[in-house]
């Protein structure tokens, strides 16, 4: 628990965390915000029938999950930053059992990644709603569109974070 608190402080003290959060909000909102425009012209080149179907409108909301990359970068920085800054020595002096440190970091990466996605997807869903407002012909989304998007955002980030973690461990072990 102590180590988790320490990781939490590393996260909230570092300015890079807020930069990444802003970037992820911007990317998710942009993705979701421009999609109605793209899809409204989609008939011409994709054979999709504009925004008149619920399934198509759902993809607009789905775009709100697209900032997972930033949540992964955050997780990578949690580990790599320690070596870049030289703080790894202090961390391992305080917690000589290294597996506990890695566990705390993995847990923090999961929690922070989820928080990042919830915030950026939440804001992007609002953006999507506003953007769709400009298209009166747009169909209503299916009932579960927003819930699905949030779930997808969480699953996306945790799966890809896990993948990144495995890659990092693979290279660290070399």
């Amino acid at each position, binding site marked *: 628990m102590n180590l988790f608190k320490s990781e939490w*402080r590393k996260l909230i*003290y570092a300015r890079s965390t807020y930069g990444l959060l802003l970037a992820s909000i911007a990317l998710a909102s942009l993705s979701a915000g421009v999609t109605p425009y793209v899809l409204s012209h989609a008939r011409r080149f994709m054979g999709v029938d504009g925004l008149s179907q619920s399934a198509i409108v759902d993809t607009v909301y789905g775009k709100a999950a697209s900032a997972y990359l930033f949540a992964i970068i955050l997780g990578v920085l949690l580990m790599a930053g320690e070596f870049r800054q030289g*703080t790894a020595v*202090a961390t391992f002096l*305080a917690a*000589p059992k290294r597996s506990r440190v890695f566990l705390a970091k993995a847990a923090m990466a999961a929690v922070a990644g989820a928080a990042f996605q919830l915030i950026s997807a939440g804001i992007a869903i609002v953006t999507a709603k506003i953007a769709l407002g400009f298209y009166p012909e747009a169909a209503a989304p299916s009932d579960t569109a927003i819930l699905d998007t949030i779930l997808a955002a969480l699953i996306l980030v945790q799966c890809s974070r896990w993948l990144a973690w495995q890659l990092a461990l693979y290279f660290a072990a070399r």
Partner: protein
Amino acid sequence: MSTSTISFNQLTKRYGKQLAVNNLNAEITPGAITGFLGPNGAGKSTALRCLLGLASPTSGTALIKGVAYSELEHPLHQVGAVLDSRGFHAGLTARQNLKVITAAAGIKDSRVDEVLELVELTDAAGKRTKGFSLGMKQRLSLAAALLGDPQILVLDEPANGLDPIGIAWLRGFLRKFADEGRTILVSSHQLAEMQHTVDDVIIINHGEMIVAGDIKSVVGDGTLEDAFLKLTLKNQASSNSSTGGGK
């Protein structure tokens, strides 16, 4: 029952073909400043890294009160370490850097401002460490080492980057710490400086201990530098002749 708080027992550390520390045996007693001396590359830092659980010995042990560092229940409450390799997050303030450590070690946060005052960094507590001078970073390292109010202090080349005032201050600080009955092990290659600081010395060269004892018996009437040069040259000559004889 030995009174030593730090003990190296046949400590050997090998990096590939490089023998960094070879069969080091030493006991460090409390209430004194022990200098761990030797030229660059002698194996001082490696021995200290083994002692602090940052490197694992190839064979032998380096123990704190008879226990390996990694087995200590609350390591920062027992041992404080000032290491060359230690860094601070440049984007965090001095206080934030220390609060990351107190959280990890379960030390109460009020200790942060106490240690910053001890090392006279109170004025810079809220500043990002990016702009810190080398001397300020050394003081912050010392502050970090003191967080757990440890009985044992291990310092690796702490005088590096300190100006004369800083060195005098450090010397006074270590003396006070030792007079409280605590244990100090300080490594250095700056012999002239160490002569006035330490009570006991352990001299190593090429990973092997050359001599250990209180400074008077090691140095005699000359300077620490003289004694060191004499001892290392003698050591080198004997090792050269032995390898030469083998060929």
